């Protein structure tokens, strides 16, 4: 404790005008020392977690705005939650303007790092992993911003999440880049969110690579304006291990990209290869819903200029539905053809330039017995405006000068 105090004093003496550094070294009572630093930090401060392995019996939390939490690097600072006795996540952030950088979180019992209801949250150069490999008993989400605005996920690796490795829910203005998601059920998922750029990521060995969904009955619905580009979405081949009941349990093992409900989603310039169920799935939400403000249809969708390798050699559809016989192997891109579902009818404007495309022409969402499959070189017509690039506030996620 005395050494800790001296470290703070030394940092204070160094006169960081931008704020002080609260250093936390590995050793006994790490839980209390780190949590105390997270409570004592003032806006502008940095909580610097040293190298080594830290073991925690509880979740950690940060509720001070403008704090940076750093480790000594993803390969040097390891926060282990294998002995966690409570809390729904490893680290919970409920304050604005926070950056977490340069550390590895392991084996949280619930989610890895979560931010809830915040503005300007940055997750940079982090690893969140479950060290026992893909298991249903792993936590749901690795990096989990929800109900947040201005979200940056950069240089993050997540492996083993029993739902989505990188999951952004009910948020606005989002950038997910330079990150890697592997051995999760879903690699990267953008759900009920507005304005997201997902680019230059690798999503591999998940059950599904990249998902863009909109679900009913939630405070924020009407997800729109997501661009998925320059990603490598390859070899998603881990059998879906999601606990049933969760929406991702319906994602077929071996899906590259899946779009469900949502609008203005543009998927372009990706490498999509080695996904046995499908390259890209475009489907309506097929469960009953009572929410009158919800639109279950994917609409204003563009899929163009992707480099499609070999996909869909063992095709399967959301919810475990099988394709009509004679459709194996199937075209790499599949649309359910639904333009009206749950009492909602929309002008579903698609431009699927990458073909060939299978249109199942279902009479209603999920009604595979009504399928009238047709295959065309492309589908729809161009002309949908691409969502503008996501601009984050200047300086977000950058180290203090």
């Amino acid at each position, binding site marked *: 404790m005395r050494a800790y105090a001296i470290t703070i004093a030394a940092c204070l003496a160094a006169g960081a005008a931008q704020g002080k550094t609260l250093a936390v070294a590995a050793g006994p009572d790490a839980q209390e020392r780190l949590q105390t630093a997270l409570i004592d930090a003032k806006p502008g401060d940095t909580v610097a977690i040293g190298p080594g392995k830290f073991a925690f019996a509880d979740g950690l939390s940060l509720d001070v705005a403008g704090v940076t939490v750093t480790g000594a690097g993803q390969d040097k600072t390891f926060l282990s939650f294998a002995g966690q*006795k*409570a809390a729904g996540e490893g680290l919970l952030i409920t304050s604005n303007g926070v950056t977490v950088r340069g550390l590895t979180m392991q084996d949280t019992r619930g989610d890895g790092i979560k931010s809830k209801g915040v503005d300007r949250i940055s997750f940079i150069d982090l690893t969140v992993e479950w060290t026992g490999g893909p298991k249903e008993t792993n936590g749901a989400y690795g990096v989990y911003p929800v*109900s947040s605005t201005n979200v940056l996920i950069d240089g993050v690796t997540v492996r083993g999440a*029993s739902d989505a490795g990188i999951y952004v829910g009910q948020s606005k203005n989002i950038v997910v880049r330079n990150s890697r998601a592997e051995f999760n059920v879903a690699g990267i998922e953008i759900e009920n969110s507005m304005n997201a750029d997902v680019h230059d990521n690798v999503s591999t060995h998940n059950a599904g690579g990249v998902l863009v969904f909109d679900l009913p009955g*939630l405070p924020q619905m009407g997800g729109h304006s997501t661009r998925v580009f320059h990603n490598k979405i390859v070899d998603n081949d881990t059998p879906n291990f999601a606990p049933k009941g969760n929406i991702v349990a319906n994602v077929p093992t071996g899906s590259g990209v899946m779009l469900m409900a949502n609008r203005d989603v543009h998927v372009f310039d990706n490498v999509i290869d080695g996904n046995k169920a499908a390259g890209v799935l475009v489907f309506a939400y097929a469960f009953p819903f009572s929410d009158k403000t919800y639109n279950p249809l994917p609409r204003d969708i563009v899929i163009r200029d992707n480099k499609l390798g070999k996909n869909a050699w063992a095709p399967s559809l959301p919810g475990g539905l099988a394709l009509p016989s004679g459709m194996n192997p199937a075209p790499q891109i599949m649309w359910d053809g639904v333009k009206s579902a749950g009492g909602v009818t929309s002008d579903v404007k698609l431009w699927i330039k990458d073909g060939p495309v299978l249109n199942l022409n279902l009479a209603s969402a999920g009604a595979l017995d009504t399928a009238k499959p047709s295959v065309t070189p492309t589908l729809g017509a161009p002309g949908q405006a691409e969502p503008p690039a996501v601009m984050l506030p200047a300086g977000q996620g950058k180290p203090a000068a």
Partner: protein
Amino acid sequence: MRRLAAIVLAALSLGLARPQPPVALDLLLAEGPAPNLADYRLFTDAGGRRPNGRVTPYALNTPLFSDYAEKSRYLFLPPGTQARYVATGVLDLPVGATLVKTFAYPADLRRPTERVRFIETRLLIHKAAGWVALTYVWNADQTEAVLKRAGARLPISVTGTDGQPLSFDYAVPNVNQCKECHSVSGVLEPIGPKARNLNGSFPYVTGTENQLAHWTRAGLLAGAPPLAKAPRTPVWTDAGESVDARARAYLDANCAHCHNPQGHASNSGLFLQWEETEPAARGVRKRPVAAGRGSGDLGFDIAPGRPEDSILLYRMKSREPGVMMPELGRALVHKEGVALIEDYLRQMPP
């Protein structure tokens, strides 16, 4: 020397004649926390058993389950102030108002008033800038409670309600965890002292009386309507109430601090506050959103008529972090609460 002795004697006799010094309002309103609970003089004894003047004990019709801890609650109101009645939500409490809650364990849970050991005393202080949560942990001698900001785990060994030995880790929350539950749109607020949850009787030293009536009569509460017109949360153990009403009261007290549209779990879309009427929002045939393994391979929060297929009950029965609900403040399963919710789900028409 004689003179000095005389002064001391005089001072002592004066001290005996004078009433106790009042609650230290200046410390309650100070920017930082006091290191010891005793500094605030909320109690007149070192053991925290005897409340000072203007510190009023109260109870809730249906409280939060906290690992079978016994809780004693008090409200301090600064001199010359009153709480104002609010029909829905927490009473309007003045700056300086302080809610005091002591968590304690009897040696045997079947004898709740015998051999009681205090664990921690939590304060919610209404400062000028808003509410602040603090917790003070009692020492082994039960003579002193010391500020604990980063939380702690304390081993508890008692005899359980079934007569069997019961050992577990009691979690003292850190100040952030206090806020997770006590959060309304990200701002810390009290949960318990709502008119409807105070609208019940309390065994005062002067006799048993309805709390709203007592507070009004004592000048602590202004604006309350006649009792018949005040809302009332059912007592969850009152067999005279319907299962539906008791269960909704239980879910309100145990879940709705997070599961409401302004709470920490707002993103789930599952809203369990007493006032929520929309069945889907209350969980009926509602699919999980971010439950992860908390779904337990089940499809709905509430499968009407089928408690065994309802995620709500599954998570109440779990002791696994990442599965169990609530996420904080519970290490044990509340068997009696589980039984009530099981009845509630079973009798729900499919």
